[in-house]
């Protein structure tokens, strides 16, 4: 543990903490754009710079470890001046069509401009425009809104291992792209969508949310993925009682990371093929029935067989897709209502 002073208050924090982490844990928010827990620290956006007593330059708090006796100012005049200029520079080279941006209201760039009262930029000049890439099935890439934080590059390389993205060109011409500037189909992209989830602005956006609703109209429900046994935690984005997308949730052991199925595999929920009514087969064809009718029918049939043959004539297959509660009731049903232990599920497949 070391003791440091932040904005005049003394704190005791573990010696391996960065200034950013030390501040965060003590309730002091420092703005960041390129920092993402778990990814390599690139220190590139410079939003998180702070003033450290005795150091001439401002330091990136994400990349600077705490040291004993360190005195930090997180919102001094110098710091604010630097942050304001960084924001002015970013919006000077950013497609500012915020009115219809899907991230309007859910955008770090907007939030920080508000926080530091940056209404406009004096740096009017060259601006990069790139055509929007709509070529892949799952998300659009609108690099006129990219702030080059590099998180998409890192998460793809460091978590997925697909190494789809990298920076191209230098200086002002720097652009994030895929190998040979190709569409994602031509790359090693596995469509995990993690780049979309880490993008702090509207540069990478799921196609499914386009024109579906403003971020504040969208409800986010934390739940567990319905595919494999890892049980990733995710947030379903819901608008007007329909799922429109998925975003990261960091409360599970997947730490907010997802694969293609969790991220983009939810559409079956709204499939036209969903069964909506009980069906009873009569003369070889299914006919719609009410619940009352269908359940009575089933109960009657089961009762008949039970009376005639006893429990040994029944078997039940439950599902690894169903919840614990449903599975519990199912085996309870088989055992107590149908008097059989012939109950299994597909664990072996």
């Amino acid at each position, binding site marked *: 543990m070391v003791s440091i002073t932040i904005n005049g208050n003394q704190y005791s924090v573990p010696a391996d903490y960065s200034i950013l982490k030390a501040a965060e844990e003590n309730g002091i928010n420092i703005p960041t754009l390129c920092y993402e827990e778990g990814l390599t620290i690139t220190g590139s*956006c*410079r939003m998180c710079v702070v003033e450290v007593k005795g150091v001439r330059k401002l330091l990136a708090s994400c990349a600077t470890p705490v040291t004993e006796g360190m005195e930090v100012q997180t919102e001094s005049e110098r710091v604010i001046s630097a942050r304001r200029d*960084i924001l002015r520079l970013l919006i000077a080279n950013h497609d500012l069509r915020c009115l219809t941006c899907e991230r309007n209201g859910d955008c770090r760039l907007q939030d920080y401009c508000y926080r530091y009262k940056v209404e406009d930029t004096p740096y009017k000049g060259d601006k990069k425009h790139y055509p929007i890439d709509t070529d892949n099935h799952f998300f659009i890439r609108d690099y006129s809104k990219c702030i080059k934080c590099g998180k998409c590059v890192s998460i793809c390389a460091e978590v997925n291992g697909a190494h789809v993205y990298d920076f191209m060109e*230098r*200086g002002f011409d720097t652009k994030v792209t895929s190998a040979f500037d190709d569409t994602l189909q031509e790359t090693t992209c596995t469509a995990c969508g993690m780049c979309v989830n880490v993008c702090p602005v509207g540069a990478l956006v799921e196609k499914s949310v386009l024109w579906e609703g403003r971020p504040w109209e969208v409800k986010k429900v934390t739940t567990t993925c319905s595919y494999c046994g890892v049980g990733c935690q995710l947030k379903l984005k819901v608008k007007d009682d329909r799922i429109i997308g998925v975003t990261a949730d960091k409360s599970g052991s997947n730490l907010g990371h997802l694969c293609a199925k969790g991220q983009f595999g939810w559409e079956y929920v709204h499939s036209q093929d969903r069964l909506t009514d009980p069906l009873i087969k009569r003369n070889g064809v299914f006919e719609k029935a009410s619940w009352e009718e269908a359940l009575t029918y089933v109960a009657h049939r089961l009762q008949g067989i039970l009376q005639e043959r006893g429990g040994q004539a029944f078997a039940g297959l439950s599902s690894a897709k169903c919840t614990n509660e449903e599975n519990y009731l199912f085996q309870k049903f088989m055992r107590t209502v149908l008097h059989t232990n012939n109950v299994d599920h597909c664990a072996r497949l």
Partner: protein
Amino acid sequence: MKEILVCGGTGCISGDSRLVHDALEQELSRQGLEAEFKLKYTGCHGFCEQGPVILVTPKDNFYCKVAPQDVPNLIHQLKEGKVYDELLYVEPTTNERILTRHDVPFYKKQQRLVLKNCGIIDPENIDDYLSSCGYKSLQKVLKLQPEQVIQEIKTSGLRGRGGGGFPTGTKWDFARKSVADNKYIICNADEGDPGAFMDRSLSEGDPHAVLEGMLIAGYAIGAQEGYIYIRAEYPLAVKRLSIAIEQAKARGYLGKNLLGSKFDFSIKIKQGAGAFVCGEETALMESIQGNRGMPRPRPPYPAVKGLWDRPSNINNVETLANVPVIMEMGSERYAQIGTEKSKGTKIFALTGKVNNTGLAEVPMGITLREVVFDIGGGVSDGKKFKAVQIGGPSGGCLTEEHLDLPIDYDSLLEAGAMMGSGGLVVMDESTCMVELARFFLSFSRHESCGKCTPCREGNTRLLEILQRIVEGNGEMEDLDRLQSLGENIIQSSLCGLGQTAPNPILSTLKYFRQEYELHVKNKVCPAGVCKALLSYKVMEDKCKACGLCKKSCPTEAITGEKKQAHKIDVSKCAQCGVCMEKCPFDAIIRG
């Protein structure tokens, strides 16, 4: 035996020194004089302005601007034991011919410690190096404990010559103390500053000294492998370093159990693609690893986690070339050279509006005046001294008031400039300081790696503002914007490139603010450089209404009656300047 030392540095080569050398070789053999004269093709002599140059020992006669057709006459004179007057250096102020190199003003105030072999030995021949005490320092070092070696370097007060001026011994100490299975020594020969060529000249002229420095550093920190990162635009340096490595291997100065000790060391060369930012130590290591050359945040410092995540020590070519010198002369003697906090010598690349351009090694603490006027021979074409830009694109400018400033790390920083790698550009009254700042900034903008926001976006905006100003579209608020944005870029950028890129603006703004204001308010470039601002004006009080200008103007832009001051219609003026030449009363000005 007499030696004829023909300069084979890149500067003289471009002046065809190779042909001179070959002509000498032929002539000597034709006349059967090989036994009498030993001909050598050496590294750079430094006085590139006068190239191709030849030094003849032991008399130290220095011949300039030698052409192949001069060779028969030269040999003729040498054979007779005479001096060939025609080619001796002429002192421009006195028009006197100067007999020995030592008396040439360019060399007089120099102290050539690190450059002592440059221009003297044949860089492609290890024996030449060995016979001038080469690898003696290494032998000495191998008998010491690594800690003792580090102590020697600490005592010498050597500081990094790559720009930062970090104490070398302390840096080695950090790397020594890091524990790992492998450590690296990296020699930074990227030399990206435009106009700087000391590292190139050292690598070309005395490559073994660089290797010896790396070996000693490797022994001191406990590394077994070294990399030389050098730009591919330096083919001759690459070639000579490669030859040196092969020869050192063959003689047992590289390899396993060096000179019977337990120390193993090998050196690889890695060629860079010539991005300025790849000279920054962390970007350089990324580049060696095959990644995009982008700096990474420090800490962790290279001494803890450098190349391939192993502890690494990175030093500049000149820093490393100092090491054998220190070990040879002893750290205490070395520490007597220079000032209290800046020890030893520094090599400067002297360029710009100065009579003697070239490479000069001077003791730290020498004044700017001595460098510009004594060594450099003053401003060229008899013009007036205006300023020097020191430290390349990351440095700042110094003016007349600084001429007596001692050149050392700390005084330069205090004055708003920096030592940098040692570029020194002299400017005269015809230099526009706004345009100068614009020039350096366009370099930095172009070389920004694009990783961090302030440098990537900010330098573009600074450049746009400067562009506006030199085009006559600036406004006064632009000067404040330059100042505040410049400061913020310096404060918040990730690496040294961004942290220094606005320096040329801030220092010119500080010392030449008036020049900026003239551009903005009066739309005038006083140095007459900024094309868009050039306009000719008749100063009414001086005009005698002689009408000569009116007659000479090809576009009939001048109007005026007798006894009435004349006027120039800017919209018709083609800016040819004839009127100004013709005016007998100097009443027409350009600005």
